[in-house]
């Protein structure tokens, strides 16, 4: 049988522990007002959503584009290996309201250029982006993505995205992924040579 003193001690220790626990959590909650849905994205896309490793930058992306992409993960129409591996699961339980909120939230974060392309290819990438190649029937990217690759409505911003992401995405269209994407991108990207893709991805990585 425990003495009254021991019981008192236990009570005090327990109470102190609870107070200590609350005290340690409260400031964290106060600092971090982001909802859990945003944190679930930033684990991989980076704390300020500038992109990290295979995860592209979300900051500054057109909200309609981001929302459409979230839907396409849920419908499994965006079907490249990383999408399957990470995004299909990550988006499975998102409600339409949450997707809408997340897309707007990230569109308002300021984007920073990745600057990770090959500088020597930037000039030829710029020419291809702005004018296409009329002799080879390659269209200008700027006609839809805007003169500074800023994007509009559901047409994505490309300016400053990572070289590796752009190169992977453009190459994957030629490999038959993501064919359900709205025309005309599968047809355009599928015809680009690997040199053209390298040049475009390099140029765009430097665009602010």
């Amino acid at each position, binding site marked *: 049988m425990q003495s009254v003193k021991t019981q008192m001690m236990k009570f005090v220790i327990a109470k102190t522990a609870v107070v200590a626990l609350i005290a340690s959590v409260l400031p964290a909650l106060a600092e971090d007002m982001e909802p859990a849905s945003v944190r679930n994205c930033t684990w991989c896309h980076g704390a300020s959503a500038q992109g990290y490793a295979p995860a592209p930058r979300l900051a500054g992306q057109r909200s309609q584009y981001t929302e459409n992409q979230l839907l396409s993960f849920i419908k499994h129409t965006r079907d490249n290996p990383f999408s399957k591996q990470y995004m299909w699961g990550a988006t499975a339980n998102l409600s339409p309201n949450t997707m809408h909120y997340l897309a707007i939230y990230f569109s308002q974060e300021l984007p920073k250029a990745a600057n990770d392309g090959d500088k020597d290819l930037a000039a030829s990438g710029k020419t291809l982006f702005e*004018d*296409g190649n*009329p*002799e080879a*029937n*390659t*269209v*200008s990217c*700027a*006609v*839809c*993505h*805007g*003169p500074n690759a800023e994007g*509009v*409505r559901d*047409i994505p911003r490309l300016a400053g995205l990572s070289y590796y992401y752009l190169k992977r995405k453009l190459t994957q269209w030629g490999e038959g992924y993501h064919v359900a994407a709205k*025309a*005309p991108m599968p*047809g*355009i990207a599928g015809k680009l040579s690997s040199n053209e893709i390298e040049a475009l991805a390099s140029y765009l990585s430097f665009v602010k």
Partner: protein
Amino acid sequence: MKLSNIRLALPTAILAIFFSATGRAEDAGTDVSKQSLQSKIEYCKTCHGVSGQGFHGATPIPRLAGQPTEYIENQLRAFIEHRRDNRYMYTVSHVLSPAMRTALAKHFSDLNPKPLGGASKELVAAGKKLYNEGIPDAQVPPCATCHGPEAKGNGEFPRLAGQLNDYILNKLVNWNKERGQDPANPDISAIMQPIAHNLTKPQIEAIAAYLNYLE
């Protein structure tokens, strides 16, 4: 310019276009292979829509379907000759042979997809009235006079039926910056210049909404 002057100028312009068009038909030739034409058509449709119905890129990209061949050919030449200012379309057109321009014009002229739509339906009735009656007080003739009662166009006068409403708005408010850019080589765009100038933005929006749904 007075309305009576515009009315006189129109038949003259139509006659002039008629004669210049017959002169050009001879040197067009038919030396375009089926395969190169098909590739070029796909290239055009990447931006102008899979059926030439128009597309919303960074700016509105116009419907080409059902345009008179003379209009398409004249605009392609206008880009090349810097009469019409558009850097993207200059890049596109300056590599096209006369025979290719003729073949492309024929292809798009024969298409007839449904209009893309999307304009405010509330403006359609007012727009139809303006289109058919013009605005005599503002020296704006009825659009139907040149573009036809069904807005199907005529020779170098473009078809407007089914055109993207925001494209029409963009063109009319920027007329002086884009059209008739070579003073030494004036063209048919001069007819539209005073009309575009005299139309207000709400009037253009109403007319454009009517045309946006017209099949």
